[in-house]
């Protein structure tokens, strides 16, 4: 049972983790994209549609990544090239994604989906207690962990990562140094979109293999909160996503066992936990300032 609970937690945490790690890169480049939910739901419907039409979940995953990135490109064009307001555009992207996915998805309603089968690593998966949790999961679980490792390495150990962070921290200086601010931001925004699309595909191909309108059910917003929660640090995103997953699964178990706490309160626990941690890390204002990308949400218009 312990192992099975661990796996359930991983299932709940993985889509949040994938979407959040993408948004982290976007925000590190100084762009605030509130459209995660919209890109995610587009990924979910595309992943489902392509997988069911072709019979291949992998094609679904790739299509979801492409569509997520394409949606992000639209966001990039509006906010980076046309310099529209990022908050408003992000919200519009969410609304657009929810609407368009509902329209495309109408044909898929009531169809059983294709489930991506797990990768079971022989021998290792037989390790008691954690074997199946670590070595018998859906491929996207491994990808989510690799993404965290990769993003962490990229941001803090490569020159390109330094460039991206410098764009996010002071776009004017970066521009003066000859860095193509807008190009870097386009790349970051599209990476974020690709991740959101992938997270959506996880929902419709692994978590609950089916398409239902609005099936992201606010997970894009939680991913956004996780980025702040993690103070823009990749490993903390991982910790945050699993903490959130653990609390949301834990409260269900508490209900089944019959803990006499009102279920509404238990349901609110993951959100309460998020707020508590946010308050704790915001205590030290200077430390928060150090991690926050200084140009977050500020439009960049090069001086002519």
């Amino acid at each position, binding site marked *: 049972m312990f192992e*099975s609970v661990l796996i359930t937690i991983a299932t709940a945490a993985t889509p949040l983790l994938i979407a959040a790690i993408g948004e982290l890169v976007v925000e590190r480049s100084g762009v605030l994209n509130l459209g995660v939910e919209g890109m995610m739901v587009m990924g979910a419907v595309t992943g489902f549609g392509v997988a069911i039409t072709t019979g291949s979940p992998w094609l679904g995953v790739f299509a979801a990544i492409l569509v997520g990135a394409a949606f992000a490109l639209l966001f990039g064009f509006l906010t980076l090239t046309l310099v529209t307001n990022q908050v408003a555009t992000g919200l519009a992207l969410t609304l657009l994604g929810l609407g368009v996915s*509902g329209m495309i998805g109408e044909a898929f*309603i*009531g169809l059983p989906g294709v489930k991506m089968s797990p990768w079971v690593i022989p021998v290792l998966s037989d390790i008691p207690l954690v074997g199946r949790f670590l070595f018998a999961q859906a491929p996207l679980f491994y990808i989510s962990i690799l993404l965290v490792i990769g993003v962490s390495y990229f941001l803090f150990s490569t020159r390109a990562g330094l460039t991206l962070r410098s764009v996010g921290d002071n776009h004017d200086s970066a521009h003066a140094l000859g860095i193509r601010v807008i190009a870097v931001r386009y790349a970051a925004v599209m990476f974020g979109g690709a991740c959101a699309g992938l997270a959506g595909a996880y929902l419709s191909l692994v978590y*609950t293999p*089916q398409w239902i309108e609005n*099936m992201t059910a606010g997970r894009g917003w939680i991913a956004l909160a996780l980025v702040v929660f993690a103070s823009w640090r990749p490993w903390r995103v991982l910790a945050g996503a699993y903490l959130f997953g653990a609390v949301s699964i834990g409260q*269900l178990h508490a209900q*089944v066992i*019959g803990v006499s706490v009102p279920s509404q309160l238990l349901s609110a626990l993951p959100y309460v936990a998020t707020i508590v941690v946010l308050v704790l890390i915001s205590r030290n204002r200077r430390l928060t300032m150090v991690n926050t990308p200084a140009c977050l949400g500020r439009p960049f218009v090069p001086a002519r």
Partner: protein
Amino acid sequence: MKKLVMALAASTAALAFTAAPAAAQDKTKACWIYVGPIGDFGYSYQHHQGLLDVEEHFGDKVETAYLESVPEGADAERAIERFARSGCDIIFATSFGFMDPVQKVAAKFPDIKFEHATGFKRDHPNVATYNSRFHEGRYVQGVIAAQISEKGEAGYIASFPIPEVVMGINAFMLGAQSVNPDFKVKIVWANTWFDAGKEADAAKALLDQGVDVITQHTDSTAPLQVAGERGIKGFGQASDMIKFAPDTQLTSIVDDWGPYYIERVQAVMDGSWEQQDVWGGMKDGHVVMAPYTNMPDDVKAAAEAVEAKIRDEGFNPFTGPVYKQDGTLWLEEGEVAPDGDVLSINFYVKGVDDQLPN
């Protein structure tokens, strides 16, 4: 330029005025307001199937319109009023939370008929209410669950602690206890009608804690799919979900609103529409059981017998003796609970292993 715009506006307005009565004369316009998307494959989806039944039945004689995902509250009033102004002859507001908005708009448009699902307010003569006795189906599910479960314990994924859901849990329990008096049920409140991921997690939690049959009062197919992966049986919700769980679904309660909608639209056409409060069940064809599958023949026979008893003999699941959770007597031997009491029920019957959130 401004004048031109004014003139245009005036002429379109004039067009609208001339067009509306003409359309109203030869066609009856029926309108629906849904709380969720029609793509939920659950509650709103089934209401929309009812709309399609109306279209199919009346063909050219009827014109339909619908608005989906209308939030309960102030927005609903605007949506209903918009429909009222657009020439609808009858408006079906299909969620509990549309109750007060319906009364308000109905007062302004006495010639338009309003039908409100699952509510109880009929402040004006042009408002009717309707609901279905879904708990009849849950009683049948209980009878099946008690025979399928080896541990004598079911898992129940519930949405919100409102009377509709509580009466469902109680009916399920009474059905199960009619087979196995010691039957137990574990309840998880998901606090959502519709979040596939959360419902799946709730199902996993229940199965990890050892129940060996599950049922749900939330709208997605996710719990059934989870049960299928673990080789456990379960019940569908609101629509026939057999496609999602061909080896898992035992049966499902199907909300069939079509017959009621056809009847009411017909009444508007005939001019015989009157205010009423309908709580239809199996005998009216409002509650239909999906085919009994994935169960032994004797269980199937027992289920069919109970269904027939409810449908044909008018058996009420809330027939005494029934004890409340705390052991006090609710209904005496042979006593049938009045509909009013059931519609406002806020306690569990004996054997439910949960504390009712309030």
